[in-house]
C-alpha cells in the first residue's frame, strides 16, 4: 500500500526522485561501510584462513608460522583419534547434536507457553517479567565456573568427603523432608533453572512477537465468543510462527556455543601445537550446525512453518 502511495505522490517530479534514490544509495554505502569492513577483516578472511589452516600442521616459530600440508589428517584426528579425559570430540559432538534435537522442541514449547502467560493481564505482571529476564543477565561462563567452586576446591571437598552444602538439598534436609522427595525437588529445580537460563531470549522474542499481533484480531475473536484455547491455536500461533525460525536458530547456536564441543575446541586452540586440529574441529562443528539448520529449513518448508499470513 505504502509503496503505491509513494509512487503516486512522487511521480510528477521524477528528477527529484532520482536524486533522492542516488542520495539513498550513497547513505546506504556510508551506513554499511563499518560492517562491511569488519565483515571482510574479521569474518570472511579469518573464515577462509581457518579452512586453509585445517589442512595443515602449524608450527609457531619466532620467525613466523611454518605450515606443512597434511591433507585430511587433521579431520581424521578430530573425528577418530582425539581423546580428552574420558570423552572425545566425536562423542561430545554426537551428544550435543542429540541434546539439541531433543531440547529445542521442549525449549520452543516452554518459552512460547511462558510468553503467552506473561502476556496475560494479571497483578504484578511487570515484576514477574522483570524477574524472568534475570537469568539472561546472569548467564555467564565465569560465574558458572566460580559457582562450581573451581576444580581445585571441588577436589579438596571430595577428598574430605564433604559435599557442597551451599545448595537447596542441604536446606531441605534441614527441613526434615523425605530423601526421595528431596532428590526429586532438587533435580527438578536444577533442570528448570537450566531451561530458564536458555529460554530467556526465546521468551523475549516470543513475547515481542505476540505483542505485535494486531489487537483487532483478538477483539474480533472475543466478540465471536472464542475460548482462550481457540484464540491461541487460531490467532496467536499462526502469527508467531514466522518467529519460530528465529528462535530455533538462536537456540541451536546457543546450545552449541555453550556445549562441551566448543570447550574442547577452545582447549585445543590454547595449545599452539594443535592449531591445525582445532581449525579442523571448528569446521566440523560449523558444518554440523549448518547441516542441522538446512535440515530444519527443509522441514519447515515441508510443513509450511514460518510463512506469514500477511506478508507476500
Amino acid at each position, binding site marked *: 500500500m505504502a509503496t503505491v502511495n509513494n509512487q503516486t505522490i512522487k511521480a510528477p517530479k521524477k528528477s527529484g526522485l532520482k536524486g533522492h534514490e542516488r542520495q539513498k544509495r550513497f*547513505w546506504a554505502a556510508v551506513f554499511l561501510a563499518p560492517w562491511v569492513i569488519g565483515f571482510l*577483516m574479521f569474518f570472511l578472511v*579469518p*573464515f577462509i584462513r581457518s579452512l586453509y589452516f585445517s589442512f595443515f600442521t602449524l608450527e609457531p616459530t619466532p620467525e613466523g608460522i611454518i605450515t606443512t600440508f597434511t591433507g585430511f589428517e587433521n579431520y581424521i584426528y578430530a573425528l577418530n583419534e582425539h581423546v580428552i579425559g574420558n570423552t572425545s570430540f566425536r562423542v561430545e559432538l554426537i551428544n550435543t547434536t542429540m541434546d539439541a534435537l531433543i531440547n529445542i522442541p521442549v525449549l520452543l514449547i516452554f518459552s512460547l507457553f511462558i510468553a503467552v502467560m506473561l502476556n496475560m493481564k494479571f497483578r504484578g505482571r511487570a515484576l514477574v517479567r522483570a524477574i524472568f529476564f534475570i537469568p539472561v543477565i546472569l548467564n555467564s561462563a565465569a560465574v558458572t565456573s566460580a559457582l562450581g*567452586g573451581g576444580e581445585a576446591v571441588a577436589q579438596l571437598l571430595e577428598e574430605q568427603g564433604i559435599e557442597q*552444602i551451599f545448595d537447596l538439598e542441604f536446606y531441605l534436609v*534441614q527441613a526434615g523432608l523425605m530423601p526421595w522427595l528431596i532428590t526429586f525437588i532438587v533435580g527438578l*529445580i536444577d533442570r528448570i533453572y537450566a531451561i530458564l537460563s536458555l529460554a530467556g531470549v526465546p521468551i523475549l522474542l516470543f513475547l515481542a512477537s505476540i505483542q505485535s499481533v494486531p489487537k483487532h484480531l483478538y477483539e474480533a475473536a472475543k466478540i465471536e465468543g472464542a475460548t482462550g484455547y481457540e484464540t491461541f491455536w487460531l490467532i496467536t500461533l499462526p502469527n508467531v510462527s514466522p518467529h519460530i525460525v528465529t528462535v530455533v536458530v538462536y537456540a541451536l547456536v546457543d546450545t552449541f556455543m555453550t556445549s562441551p564441543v566448543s570447550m574442547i*575446541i577452545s582447549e585445543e586452540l590454547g595449545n599452539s601445537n594443535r592449531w591445525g586440529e582445532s581449525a579442523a574441529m571448528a569446521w566440523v562443528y560449523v558444518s554440523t550446525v549448518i547441516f542441522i539448520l538446512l535440515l530444519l529449513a527443509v522441514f519447515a518448508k515441508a510443513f509450511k512453518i514460518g510463512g506469514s499470513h500477511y506478508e507476500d
Partner: protein
Amino acid sequence: MKIKSLYGSVRRSLRHTKDDIQDYMNDPATQLRWKKRVGEIFIKVMRSILLFGLCFVILFPIIQQISMALRAPVDANNPAVVWIPENWSLMNIKIAVVVLDYWHSLVNTAKLSFISMILQLFSTALAGYAFSRLRFKGSNILFFFVIITIVTPPQALSLAQYLYFRNINMIGKETSIYLMSGLGMGIRSGIFIYIFRQFFRGLPKELEESAQLDGASVFRTFWNIMLPNARGAIVTVALFAFVWQWNDAYYVSIFDVSTEEFPLLTMQLINAAEGMYQALFYTGGLDLVGQNVWENPLFLALISNVSALLMMLPLLIMYLFVQKQFVESIERTGIVG
C-alpha cells in the same frame, strides 16, 4: 398482626428469591457462564502457582548467595545457619574484594563494556537501518552474510583473528575489542543488526516520507526521526551488548585483554576460582582470616561464591534501574516487527 404480615411478606419474598435463584441456576446460559468463571479461576490459580514457582527458582540462588556472603567465615559450615547468619560479617566480601582486585577490575570492566556497547550500538544501528530502509541491489545477499555471522561459532574464527591481531600488535590491549565492536563484529553483533532491521521495518513508512518531503536528508531523517522512535530497540540492544561484554570470558581470554595493569572481572573470577589458595595467598587475603578457618575447604568455596556475587551485583543493580524501560520497550514496540 403487624408482625405476622411482615413475616408473611418476608417469606413470600424469600420464596420468590429462591425461585429466582432456581430459575437462574437452571438457565443454560448461566450454567455456561459459571463453567467459564470456574475455568477462569482455575487458570488463574494454576498460573499464579506456576509463575510463583518459577520466580522462586530464579530468585532462590541469588538470595541464598547474599545470605552466604553476609555470614562470618566461622559459620561457613555451621549447620545451624540456614538463612539468617548467626554472626553477621562483611569479612567474606572484604576477602573477595582483595582476591578479585575488585575496584580496579570493576572500573576496567565497566569501561570496556560501556565503550564497546556504544560502538556496537552505532555500527549495528546503522547497518540495521541500511538493511531495512536503504535497500539496493544485493542488500539481501549482504543480509544473508549477516545470518552466516550469527550462526558461525567464534571458535572457527578465533585462531585467524588472533594471528591477525598479533600481526598488528594488538594482543593484550582492549583496543582489539573496541575495533571488533566498532566494525560490527563484536559479541553477537549479528543478532543486534537483525533486531534493528526488524524494528526499523516495523516503523511506519509515513514517518520517513513526510520528513523527506520536507527536504530532510537521509542522514537527518535517520538521526532526528527514526532513531528517537527506535528507543525500544536501542534499550534492548544496549542492555544485551553491555551485559554480554561484561560476562564475556571468551574473547577476553583469546585476545589476552585482561592483564595485570588492566584486570577484568571475568578473568579474575575464573583465575581465582581455579586457584583459590594461591589467590588468597598472593593477594594477602589470608592475613584477613584466622588460620583455623583457612583449613576449611568449604571456606574456599564460600569465597568463590561471594566473588561471583560481587561480579553479578553491579549488573543486578543496573538492571533494577533499566528493567522498567526494558520491559516497556518490549511491550510497546515488539522488537520482532
